[in-house]
């Protein structure tokens, strides 16, 4: 992932938030990942990645116009207005910001996982060129139309993605 093109402060904030929430989770506090209602591919993927990085999290839906601040110390926001506890990924995608943060924390993404992040970033930044008929954005829309709820979709994507990520303690030097 092209770290250089991302806003470094958003990646840094995502790293801090993931570390903070992991610590809280270890202390028995329920942690939350907030994203916007009617989630698109970026919101779904960023939420799924955050939930994986946290070892599970409650998903909260909110307006994309709202940030996440100190009133919710056990929560991080993805693909919503940037704030003290939320990231937007406006220069790329929220998913790419979270993915870069996870990599900084030692997570490894295989080629498939990288491809998904790149696809979503291309959709989100409208630089996709020819888009696949069944890219993640289209699949999310089709599944919703077919009756899937968005929480189910996040869980499904996270479940499929998990085997393409290696967590820091699983990395063999």
């Amino acid at each position: 992932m092209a770290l250089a093109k991302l806003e470094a402060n958003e990646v840094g904030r995502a790293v801090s938030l993931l570390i903070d929430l992991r610590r809280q989770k270890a202390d028995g506090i329920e942690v939350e990942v907030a994203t916007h209602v009617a989630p698109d591919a970026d919101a779904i993927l960023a939420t799924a990645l955050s939930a994986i990085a946290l070892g599970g999290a409650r998903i909260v839906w909110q307006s994309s116009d709202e940030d996440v601040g100190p009133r919710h110390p056990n929560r991080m926001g993805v693909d919503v207005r940037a704030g003290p506890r939320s990231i937007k990924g406006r220069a790329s995608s929220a998913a790419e910001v979270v993915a870069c943060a996870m990599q900084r924390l030692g997570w490894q993404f295989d080629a498939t996982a990288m491809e998904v992040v790149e696809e979503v970033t291309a959709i989100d930044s409208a630089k996709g060129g020819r888009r696949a008929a069944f890219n993640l954005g289209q699949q999310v829309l089709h599944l919703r139309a077919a009756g899937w709820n968005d929480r189910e979709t996040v869980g499904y994507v996270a479940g499929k993605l998990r085997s393409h990520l290696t967590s820091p303690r699983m990395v063999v030097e």
Partner: protein
Amino acid sequence: MSEAIASINPETDGHIEGAAWLLATGRVKTVVITHGIRPGCIRIVEENGEQHELRLNSKLPMLLNLGLRTDCLTERVALGMSNEAGERINWDTTIRELRNPAGTLALLLPATTDARINYVADLLRGRIQDAEERIAAYRATSNIPIDEFQHAHLPPSIRRHQRRFLYARGALVATFADGEAMGVHLSKRAQKLGLDCRDFNGLPEHWWAEKWTVIYGSSKAPRPYDEAGITADELQAIVRDNLARLLPQNQEAEEE
């Protein structure tokens, strides 16, 4: 919804997307994947017990085989074989991607045959709904007047994302008030002319403004409609005033 049952041999190329298509279209209620039928055909047992077989052309992808047998416009649009006007088009990537899944589709496809059929059927149900909406939007927008400023207003029943049908008919700028969002959107052609929504006067300041759009509310950021500050009629009048002010100089700039 038909109660029919289809049987397909797992050695038939494309049996998964074929089964999914039969389920998604409601042609059958159940699909049995079985070696009890020879490869290359689909057996359908109707509710009344009548049986018939579809012989598949082995040179064609399964979904093209099935798509060519239907006159249903929604189904043909869903498969990327026709446009919303019913004209045949060079089939797009829909059929090819389902035949050879790659990228995110390959990642998200379940491992087992049954789960895979159900997942693809859900994708195709969504695709059929999308096709229905696009066809309805095409028909609903085909008689909408485009004014002297090449502006047109989408009816409230049509989601704003379907403005492309207005642009295809020559509109430069679209306004919308679809019950979820209210705003103005510039076509790519309008942007190339140098129009910039941020130059528009008279729109409420609490609306979100970008170069290509000024918008109040969205599916991602719902807002109370009655707090938009203006009505749909006022929006159209404001946009027309702005186009009267901005368009001539932009068109001259383009000619230069």
